[in-house]
């Protein structure tokens, strides 16, 4: 098991470097000039200096190497300094946003809590709804509950978040006026009233994201339960005279959860992708909105860094899913 984990960890490094190179080349080889928006009145020698200041004069591989060092070496040092009040990163070049002239990571750290709150909460809510639905639909296969559940998950699968989000805004904010349509990130929770407001403004974005999670996971939970319900060990458990609850909740559920847990881990990166759209709909100023703004403003360092952070998330959670699978199910350990 240890060798397997180590091998997977080592394999993740070239994967990440390849993705970093892909993103870097895509952004830098594209026929696109970050200086295109600069006014014509600026003299050419000043323009040349600006170009150098942006690091555009050097050959591609040097630019790439610098970016990799900044991302993997300097930025972690900054983080370390922040945690322990040391000064390793002093005087070192960080990744700067062209748009705001401040380090990209500082903005990311400001934006990340909003995204994590909304995305994390919706994922937890989605899982909590999905698991019971999946379990019960499988237990009562072809019942009315199962048919309705299948239909609802199909709808949740098919309705894109940019429509369900706008739809709930129309319904609950515009028509009924129950919930605020814009997520206010400056809002601080100090007492019961502000907590209630925070709760109310989180309902819609969380529900919209949770709908998709629920659709995928409950479907998966159902088929995983169905695979196990007809197995011999279930018949044995029943024959031993165990109560139905023990059979389903202890024996079947524990075995069915193995693939579901990995699917839950694998789904975390994709929900960040979905958050890009949901944040745009509800005007949450999270990391997804920062990415969209950077794309509109042609701010390549920010786009590069955030896109790469999404890639890191995907690779890390793939790794976690693989390792979890090995830990939970000893039959498929790879060593």
């Amino acid at each position, binding site marked *: 098991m240890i060798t397997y984990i180590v091998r997977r960890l080592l394999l993740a490094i070239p994967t990440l470097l390849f993705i970093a190179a892909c993103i870097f080349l895509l952004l830098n080889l594209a*026929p696109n000039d970050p200086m295109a928006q600069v006014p014509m009145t600026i003299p050419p020698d000043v323009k040349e200096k600006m170009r150098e200041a942006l690091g555009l004069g050097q050959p591609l591989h040097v630019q790439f190497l610098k970016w990799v060092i900044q991302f993997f070496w300097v930025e972690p040092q900054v983080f370390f300094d922040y945690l322990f009040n040391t000064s390793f990163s002093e005087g070192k070049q960080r990744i700067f946003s062209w748009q705001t002239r401040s380090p990209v990571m500082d903005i990311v750290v400001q934006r990340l809590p909003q995204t994590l709150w909304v995305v994390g909460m919706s994922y937890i809510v989605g899982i909590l709804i999905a698991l019971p639905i999946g379990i019960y639909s499988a237990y009562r296969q072809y019942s009315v509950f199962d048919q309705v559940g299948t239909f609802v998950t199909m709808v949740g699968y098919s309705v894109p978040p940019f429509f369900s989000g706008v739809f709930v805004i129309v319904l609950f904010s515009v028509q009924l006026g129950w919930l605020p349509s814009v997520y206010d990130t400056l809002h601080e929770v100090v007492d019961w009233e502000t907590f209630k407001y925070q709760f109310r403004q989180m309902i819609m974005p969380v529900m919209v994201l949770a709908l998709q999670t629920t659709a995928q996971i409950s479907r998966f939970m159902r088929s995983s339960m169905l695979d196990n319900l007809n197995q011999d060990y279930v018949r044995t458990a029943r024959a031993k005279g165990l109560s139905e609850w023990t059979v389903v909740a202890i024996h079947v559920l524990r075995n069915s959860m193995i693939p579901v847990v990995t699917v839950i881990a694998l789904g975390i990166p994709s929900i960040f992708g979905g958050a890009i*759209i949901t944040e745009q709909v509800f005007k949450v100023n999270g990391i997804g909105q920062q990415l969209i703004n950077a794309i509109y403003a042609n701010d390549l360092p920010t786009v590069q860094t955030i896109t790469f952070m999404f890639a890191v998330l995907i690779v890390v959670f793939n790794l976690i899913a693989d390792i979890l699978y090995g830990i939970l199910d000893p039959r498929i350990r790879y060593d």
Partner: protein
Amino acid sequence: MTDNVQFSALNKPNNKWLDVWNEFKNHKGALAGAIIFVLIVILVLLGPFVWPYEANGINIRIRNQGPSLAHPLGTDQLGRDTLARIMAGGRTSITVGLTAMLLSLFLGTLIGVVAGYFKKLDSVLMRFTDLFLSLPLLPLLLVMMLLFREPLSTSFGPEKGMFILIVVSIGITSWMPTARIVRGDVLAIKEREFILAARSIGGTDTKIIFRHILPNVLSPIMVSATLGIANAIITESALSFLGLGFPPDFPTWGRLLNDAVDYLQQFPERVFWPGLAISLTVLSINYLGDGLRDALDPRIRGR
């Protein structure tokens, strides 16, 4: 006479597609999905020929109207008929969906068959597929839209250039699941006796692939095709919704939804129609794919 009937019944060729159709017919959701999808396609293809209003016909005197007999879905802020725009938008969205699906299917099948059939290339191609699967697709699609919009628009015209860009970028970011499934099936079929027989009579690799392998992996390809259309339609709408898709005066469902969001306070009903069109199309395709998977694979029937 009786003998004759029995004889012919015994010798009746067991047509696989007839079996599939019989199974498919019994799946009510899938049948409904297929009918609705075909109706939507007919509506958006033939509708603009019958409907008297142009999608871009501006008539400022009748702007912002509610539903009426002349304009069943009302008009927008420039007096354009919403139904005509939904039909025109559907043409674009479904064309993008079909074309992008074909491209991704072609890439996926090519890589899957090559990886499954030629052992030397297998690990390289599968590593490549894994790498593509760990790319953050939506951010990358947005970046591609940003970077290649201008050059393609200048060389092919704004609409055609954008069409090529969207189709190609969706195609090259969605072939991976198809490749994986096709590879798995090819690996299994390659070991069967009829492939050995074909090889022993001197069949070349190309001939074996086209005559024996491809027809046998058709079912997973068809299922990925349906899911591919749904995925491509949603992705295109998402890009248009974020304002990075087709130019503003060119209607697609995502674009119409995006335009309607600006008038959310005054005319909330306007977001409903394009959103419903996207959701209904994708829902019907998903049901179609679900039924097709059940019908094509007897092992998972009833799941």
